[in-house]
């Protein structure tokens, strides 16, 4: 099939950037979205043009590197899917596809579709860890964890930090990401000693980075490739309020 792509091109952080239209022909429905971009890039290289820069790594939907807003939806319209796992069979011959980077002030564009997500790293550094005594591994089951807590903690821990929640949020808030980390550590016994200080430090770092505030629109969880639930944000708010008392 043949597609018309409108792609955001930006030479560097200080470049103004613009949308550029490309025709891509003979796209196989079995290609992933990234493979389709590879086809475009091979042609651009042959023509002596600069290939479209985009982040990617595992191409298995688990690393969180690939991220782009496709036709106004982070990772495209297919639910619970990263861009690399989105296949071209979900598009029709002759479709026009708009491709943009994540748009948020704390995620400055590095080049084309690549954004700098170091802001997430700094939120993690602010408190997204547990301090454990080093030594040999503890015995299994020496610290019992309730099944429901283990499940909910694991659900939150599936966050791959891709940033789709920020890209989709009308407020540019990073609440779902931060809440996922706070939930995954806060539900387990190992996370209890630092639970309050963690919530406070991570939320404060999130605000410091310039992310917007949460107004509970639910857009984040709808586009999250891992389906992180909205109740993680309620848990973050509860921990933060408790820590602020």
């Amino acid at each position, binding site marked *: 099939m043949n597609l018309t792509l409108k792609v955001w091109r930006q030479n560097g952080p200080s470049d103004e950037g613009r949308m550029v239209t490309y025709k891509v022909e003979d796209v196989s429905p079995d290609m992933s979205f990234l493979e389709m971009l590879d086809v475009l890039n091979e042609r651009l290289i042959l023509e002596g043009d600069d290939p479209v820069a985009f982040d990617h790594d595992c191409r298995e939907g688990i690393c969180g590197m690939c991220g782009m*807003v496709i036709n106004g*939806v982070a990772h495209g319209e297919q639910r619970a899917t990263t861009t690399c796992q989105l296949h071209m069979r979900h598009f029709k011959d002759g479709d026009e596809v708009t491709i943009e980077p994540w748009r948020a002030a704390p995620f400055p564009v590095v080049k084309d579709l690549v954004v700098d997500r170091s802001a997430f790293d700094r939120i993690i550094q602010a408190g997204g860890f547990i301090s454990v005594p080093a030594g040999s591994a503890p015995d299994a089951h020496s610290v019992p964890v309730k099944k429901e807590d283990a499940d909910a903690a694991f659900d939150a821990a599936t966050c791959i930090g891709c940033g789709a929640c920020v890209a989709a949020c009308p407020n540019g808030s990073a609440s779902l990401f931060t809440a996922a980390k706070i939930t995954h550590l806060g539900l387990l016994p190992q996370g209890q000693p630092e639970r309050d200080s963690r919530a406070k430090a991570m939320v404060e770092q999130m605000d410091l980075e310039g992310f917007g505030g949460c107004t509970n*629109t639910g857009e984040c969880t709808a586009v999250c490739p891992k389906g992180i639930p909205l109740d993680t944000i309620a848990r973050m*708010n509860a921990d933060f309020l408790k820590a602020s008392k």
Partner: protein
Amino acid sequence: MAVTGAILVLFLVGHMVGNLKSFFGADSFNHYAEWLRTVGTPAVPDRVLLTVIEIVLVVAVVLHMWSAVSLARRASQARPVKYAAKRKSQANGYATHTMRYGGVIIVLFVVWHLLDMTFGTVNPKGFDAEPFDRLVAGFDPSRWWVTLFYVVAMVMVGLHLRHGLWSAFQTLGLASGRSYGKLKATAALVSLVLVVGFLSVPVGVMIGVIK
């Protein structure tokens, strides 16, 4: 947003119930209006409790608006470059997208409503008339545009609460995985009851049930 919103919702419930007195005739409604001014007497002078409530409400409204404006400002600072493609909502929350402009419509309505029913400035009967006469004159069929504005504003209040009610529980960290269904259903029900309750009065005046 959550705490000030909760105060305003409690006020709306009381206001709606009070409005329904108009179905029991002029005396019942006027007596209720009088009671609002004398409640607490003689322990405290007339109007003291009412004034306290008025101050709490004004403070709640101002803080609610201040929170909304700061959230909107933070949102625009967080996304200086907008998306070229129209952002497609994935969360199916119509009410959610009415919050900001709906809030502006509601505040304009509140200003009109106070000038109409409290101060009587824009009411045909004026300030000196009995509350019930102001009510009936205000929603006279010849002033259909006032009633229309009232209907639009009440629908906006309903949508505002449809999102705002459950959202307040979320903000205060009181929601959990299992409670979303119940919270959202309660939000929808409370919003619906309030909208129907508030609209029953102008409709009652229009069709002559309240006269």
